[in-house]
């Protein structure tokens, strides 16, 4: 990788504390294990749980998969905020000082005809798999995050094998894609209140469709977010003034 200093961070850096400190720490950790294990063993053998509540309401949730029902209906507020956390991570990465060196042709040295052909074959398949995962979420394990992750992996793969340039998220349409999931989710959450409903209270009959809509939007956004997180803020958001400042820095 390009010989950039940040590309290889040696793992041996820093000296672990002195011998006595280490011993103390080890002692502490063992004590912690024992205390935690004691508490763990004291747990009731059958935790009461909420399974009965979930199954009692599952038919009204709009989906069959109970996990999806919890994630996108019963506890959809958690998921809404969780998407917020994802977005926040992206903003946080953007807010870091920009790194200049990790340039676009990162994938070039490893790219070759075998890889290219393989990725060309794989990419459409991954799109199908991602879509499938999104759809199956209503019935079986799967959903927006899983689908989005596969799509993001495809994006990274395509970029690493130098088949296509990175999308530029300073563009308005790419930002839309990035924010689409959260915006849709939020719009639904508040929109259902217009008729006097409560936050995130989907209309019972439409629950399935609403969930699918949200999940579709989320899949797109999560794919974008994961790609951006993979990049760690490289190659993004150049401002007009920046080139000037880089020249100044070089002088």
């Amino acid at each position, binding site marked *: 990788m390009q010989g950039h200093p940040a590309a290889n961070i040696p793992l041996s850096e820093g000296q672990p504390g002195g011998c006595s400190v280490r011993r103390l720490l080890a002692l502490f950790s063992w004590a912690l294990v024992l*205390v*935690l294990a*004691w*508490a*763990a063993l*004291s*747990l*009731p053998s059958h*935790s*009461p*749980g*909420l399974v009965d*509540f*979930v199954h009692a*309401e599952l038919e009204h949730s709009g989906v069959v998969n109970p996990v999806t029902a919890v994630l996108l*209906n*019963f*506890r*959809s*507020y*958690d998921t809404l*905020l*969780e998407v*917020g*956390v994802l*977005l*926040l*991570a992206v*903003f*946080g990465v*953007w*807010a*870091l*000082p*920009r790194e200049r060196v990790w340039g676009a042709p990162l994938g070039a040295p490893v790219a070759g005809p075998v890889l290219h052909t393989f990725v060309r074959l794989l990419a459409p398949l991954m799109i199908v798999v991602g879509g499938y995962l999104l759809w199956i979420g209503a019935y079986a394990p799967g959903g927006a995050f899983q689908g989005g992750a596969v799509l993001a992996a495809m994006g990274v793969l395509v970029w690493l094998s130098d088949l296509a340039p990175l999308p530029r998220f300073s563009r*308005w349409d790419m*930002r*839309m894609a990035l*924010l689409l999931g*959260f*915006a849709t989710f*939020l719009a639904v*959450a*508040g929109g259902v*209140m217009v008729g006097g*409903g*409560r*936050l*995130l*209270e*989907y209309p019972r009959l439409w629950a399935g469709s609403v969930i699918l809509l949200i999940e579709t939007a989320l899949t797109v956004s999560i794919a974008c977010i994961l790609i951006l997180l993979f990049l760690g803020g490289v190659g993004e*958001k150049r*401002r007009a*003034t*920046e080139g000037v*400042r880089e020249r*100044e820095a070089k002088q």
Partner: protein
Amino acid sequence: MNAWIVWPVVVPLAAATLSVLAGQRMARVIIGSATVAIVGALAGLTLQVWQNGPQRHVIGGWEPPLGIQLYADGLSVVMLWMSTVVGALIGVYALGYFAHDSGTTGTAATGEHGDNSELFWPLWLFLWAALHALFLSADIFNLYVTLELLGLAGVALVNLAGGQLALVAGMRYLLASLLGSLAYFLGVAFLYATCGVLDVRMLSTRVSAHPAVWLAIAVMTLGLLLKTALFPLHFWLPPAHANAPAPVSALLSALVVKASFYLLLRLWFQVFSVVLPPVAGQVLGILGVLAILWGSVLALRQQRLKLLVAYSTVAQIGYLFVLFPLAGGTAWGAAAWSGGTFHALAHACAKAAMFMAAGTMMAALGHDHLHELAGMGQRLPLSMFAFALAGVSLMGLPPSGGFVAKWLLLDAALASGQWWWGAVLIVGGLLAAGYVFLVLRQAFAPLPADVRYRPVPRVMELAALSLALLAFLLGLMAIPPLTLLQIGAPFVGGLGTEALP
């Protein structure tokens, strides 16, 4: 429309999303209207709580334990007002701060500011939403998500400063924050395993003296103490708060540390109160005392203004924890409860004003070395005045909000017969006077002739002054918030100074 309770969370989230999409000018309009909307919603919610008692909102129509509900009592409403008013004025300040900053980046004097200052706005809105979500949530797992939201937003904001110090401080803050959240999360897992519910109200009826519950209490408390930066877990706070951009320092010191404190209050007094032995409160109180002393002494020894203010935060957090040993009794519990929470409120206003004033001076001078601030009273009289007024509240002198808090806590300490807590409050006030006047005396020193000085936007000075005035005069309008705090409080009645039998 009577569901005012959801908008303090939804509006800033929506505004954050829109502001990323919109251009710079449009973003200002969006943020301004969002602020107005939040204030309006909060006013509606306050009225509801005032008239009808605590408010609930069952999200999605799924009653707990299956679903999540929002819950607002007097404490939540007071905290919401705190974060809304302080947050909004910090926003006003930031307008001037970043305008001033971007006009002058590249000069060596300002230090290496990041070039991403427009990201302040969505991050600030996310932080706001996270605070509001935390103050309103009644579900321990949902609270975990809000904690993470808050922590990430806080760290991202610190990094906006961009320099080497800020990056390292941000990393330390991030690690501490994540460790705290994970400890809390482990507690959530244990509680779910024992009680089978996540709703705060239901939990309070199901917790029992069980090893797993004790462990959950221990790890959750430790995690939250780390996030609140109570001595000796405060190590991450001073560098993070001192090296962040001034509006961010204000946000973190004034509001973010209060969030985990609030959560601790909720858990201790509304969930775990039945199983907690009194000695536990004493332990927290002792840590609070140590924080007051340690933070104040270190504040006295600082050479940099912002570090001084940051160590003052470490000390002031200590006051909050004096509440715990005092809130045990019925006769004085209400005074301790009100005093502690009112202190959070007063400190939020005062500390934000202080960091803003310090930031203004730093922006004007290009540094914040304490011994080179001479004559700032003539250059930036409004900022110095704001600093002084905020300082009065930190010292706990009348008629400031800090005074009311100190009075109530002192009252509770004497009523409970534990006068030593009161003695600490008094000593802490004197130490605070020590470090505040360390700065203020510079205002009267003669102005050196050769100091480079850059004019700063007036709006920065005015925003700081408004908050400082609020902190100073909070004591004169203490009755409404104190009355609000009684709504849904674990201690009913008994507030006041009626004689002992």
